[in-house]
């Protein structure tokens, strides 16, 4: 009875990936507990609820056949794009950014949906054009990617824009975009940097400038970076011990349970903890790349590869910004940071990975 229930639950679950995810999430909960001051379980419980919801999403997505997902890609993308347009026209402004859309019964943040919808859409597009891709296909792919990214940048939400762009770019990259075009685009991008600079909002420019020299604004924008670097640096090799980080526990680290949770982790667990975390991330990524490499359709391959690489981007951007080598862009540390939305979209993505991993024999005819 129990074994049958287990079998029912685990039928579409990839064991190694699940194990790595579970370890990372368990670590995350411990750090959230510490980041909420210790002795206060409310955030831990709330994060447990988020996890439960996210695992349901993972399980559901793992059971959706990749071909069904492929069919859902276009509608999901179109709906997402319409919602983004809705946001641009009728969106609610919170904290100075127009990111939320009030649908009457609930408010949604369509940019989150696009983190999954964009790579699926591009994978679907390349799958359809699999007989001989031409430059024109990549141009169209570029437009498919540029539309949502442009709308998200305008919100403005640089962090999400970077992630959505990355997820789409990885699909195009894996599909085989020629190096010539990539280098040309890179050069063009570099050349347009000064122009982009003028498009950025003041606070975004300030973040970039602050990254270059945090001491310029030690009480304002630089405060985040200065305090988080102090936290990490003072942790040393073995850390100050769980719940014993002075920077974290005395509130010097801002956003310590969300975007800057790595500062808490690095202070309390030191370099050793950081190595463990990077190894866990690597395990997840390696398993994801294996699933991608062994996937049987173009769509599956591209989707699995893009989801895995996007996960990496999350981790790298967050760790880079908290340790002071990338600008502060508001990206949570995947699987560790407190918060439900990112967790949900991430585990949904891993659900898709598992679906691809466990459905491949059935379509290989």
């Amino acid at each position, binding site marked *: 009875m129990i074994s049958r229930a287990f079998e029912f639950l685990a039928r579409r679950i990839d064991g190694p990936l699940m194990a790595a995810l579970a370890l990372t999430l368990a670590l995350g909960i411990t750090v959230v507990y510490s980041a909420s001051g210790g002795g206060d379980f409310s955030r831990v419980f709330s994060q447990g609820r988020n996890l439960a919801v996210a695992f349901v999403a993972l399980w559901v997505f793992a059971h959706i056949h990749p071909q069904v997902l492929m069919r859902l890609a276009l509608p999901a993308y179109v709906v997402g794009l319409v919602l983004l347009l809705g946001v641009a026209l009728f969106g609610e402004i919170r904290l100075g950014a127009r990111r939320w859309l009030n649908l009457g019964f609930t408010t949604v943040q369509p940019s989150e949906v696009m983190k999954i919808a964009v790579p699926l859409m591009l994978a679907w597009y390349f799958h359809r054009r699999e007989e001989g891709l031409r430059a024109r296909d990549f141009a169209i792919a570029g437009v498919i990617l540029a539309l949502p990214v442009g709308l998200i940048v305008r919100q403005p939400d640089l962090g999400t824009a970077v992630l959505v762009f990355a997820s789409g770019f990885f699909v195009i990259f*894996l599909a085989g975009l020629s190096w010539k075009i990539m280098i040309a685009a890179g050069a063009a991008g570099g050349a347009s940097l000064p122009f982009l600079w003028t498009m950025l909002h003041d606070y975004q420019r300030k973040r970039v400038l602050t990254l270059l020299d945090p001491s310029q604004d030690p009480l304002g924008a630089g405060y985040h970076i200065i305090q988080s670097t102090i936290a990490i640096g003072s942790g040393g090799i073995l850390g100050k011990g769980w719940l014993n980080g002075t920077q974290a526990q005395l509130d010097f680290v801002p956003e310590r349970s969300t975007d800057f949770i790595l500062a808490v982790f*690095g202070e309390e667990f030191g370099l050793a903890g950081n190595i463990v975390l990077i190894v866990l991330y690597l395990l997840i990524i390696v398993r994801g790349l294996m699933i991608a490499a062994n996937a049987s359709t173009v769509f599956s391959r591209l989707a699995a590869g893009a989801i895995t690489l996007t996960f990496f981007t999350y981790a790298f951007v967050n760790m*880079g910004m908290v340790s002071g080598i990338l600008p502060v862009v508001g990206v949570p540390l995947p699987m560790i940071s407190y918060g439900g939305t990112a967790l949900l979209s991430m585990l949904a993505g891993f659900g898709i990975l598992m679906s691809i991993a466990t459905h491949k024999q059935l379509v290989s005819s």
Partner: protein
Amino acid sequence: MMVGQALRDQQRELTVFRSRLMLAGLGIVVAFGILLGRFAWLQVVQREYYHTLAEANRISVVPVVPNRGLILDRNGEVLAANYSAYTLEITPSRVPNVERAIDELAGVIEVSARDRRRFRKLQEESKNFESLPIRTRLTEEEVARFAVNRYRFPGFEIKARLFRSYPQGEVASHAIGYIGRINDADVKRIDDAGLATNYKGTDHIGKLGIEGAYERELHGTTGSEQVEIDAGGRAIRALARQEPVSGNNLVVTLDLKLQKIAEAAFGDYKGALVAIDPRNGEVLALVSRPGFDPNLFVDGIDPQNWDALNNSPDKPLNNRALRGQYPPGSTVKPFMALAALEYKKRSPEFSIGDPGFFTLAGVAHRYRDWKKGGHGTVNMHKSIVVSCDTYYYGLATEMGIDAIHEFLTRFGFGQRSGIDIEGELAGLAPSQEWKQQRFKQKWYAGDTVSVGIGQGYLLATPVQLATAVAGLANGGIPVKPHLLKAVQDSKTRQTREVENPVAEGKPVVKDTNLALIRAAMVDVTKPGGTASAAFAGAPYLTAAKTGTAQVVGMKQNEKYDEKRLKREHWDHALFVAFAPADNPTIALAILAENGQHGASTAGPIARQVFDYYLLKKEVPVKPPPPPPEDDTGDDEHD
């Protein structure tokens, strides 16, 4: 063919995909490598640096203010003490609208108009981020009431603080002084003295009197506490503590009981009294009337009280004992006589016939004696006993001003007595040189004549007179009056006595000469002497001299008529004395402003002070009689 092409394409696509995947994997390894490098840099190489920064973040050193030393009288009576009380303080920079917040506060606890005025004055004088008291001495109930409403008042804080209190109120206020909030000038002085560290956290400082002069003894050494603070600056817990060292207690030379009796003896008169132990210079009583309540200054005085004190015609803030410069009048005569003996300008037996006036050779002007018709035949002894003016007009003229200047300087005239509190003025012992410098004028013979009876340019403060008289009392040894008797460690109670500065002194006059003067001064208080009424029946011998100092000048033929003068133009009454005359333990000088008659106004004050000091007799304090309606006393009027 088509299928083969498709398969080849598929194969090619897979190869591209896998190689791209490999490339991405390589990129990931490089990226994570960069991150690990960054972590190693921060957490291994720079670890010490960041560790220091983190400690500096969390540890804050806060000063622990020491308790201020107490001030006690010579018998251990408390003159200045501390008590702990709650204050409600506001940091104006943290309150958007201070006035409105105070209005709101008034609905919770009582805030009087005086509190508001005082707060506004403090606010003008302070920096915005300082915490300033709006209410002091809150009751437990008020503290509780505020605590409940605390959330409504950001930037307000209840603090338990030590307050200074002066339990004796006005008594001895000019000697004790007071403390007040540290102002910009104080900050500069503290900085210049290199004491800035020791004054961290301290917001009051001694301003006047003993509180001011012995600030260093009283303040103590500031301790410190290392506290762990959070990012909001709130203290979480104490890590280490260096205890402050309380300030030393000061035992002063004043005798509180004597001081009280002396002050009460003045009645409504303004004036000053300084009583000194002639054996060692200890100041037993230092009176300046009217006084003020030093408690008003402790929390910052409010403008209304300040104006009242500052603008009163009675000038209660003026320390008359140290800063009042008056003509010494006839009280200078014993010194003039002594000078004449020392300079051998007069023998004790030399007599004059006093016609009631004196004239300089070749000048018509008559210098009148206070007694119409004169005192008859007057020798030196009689000149002191009856306070003959004519005798001294001639004596001074013969000695010349420079000899007078030199001699008076020996007894401390014209220079600060060196009493150990601040603000003393020097008085004036004139000389030819002085007049030349001051007025670019030569000294006239007529100038010397009035100096002979303690008028003219001659000016002395009460503390100077008392010091000079103490010199007569102790055999001619100059004394340095001082208020500090001993310094007591507030913890160990170990007491360090202030050394006795008289012991090494040498007499500045001949013993035999001094004996003559003292004998004459004793007869002043005996029947026939000018102060006989005040000392009738005293079981001890008193040596004294009365004096009267003109406030307004008289024309040649004008008669002094108090009924035609405003009270503030009435003569000042002076009195100097020491007792017991054969072995003096107390010497004093009294000045009663507009008291008119040294003997009848100031004499009884001296009698009460001596009776208490020598006999421990506490007669119900009897204020001196109001000035008599007509001028028929048996006392002198010079």
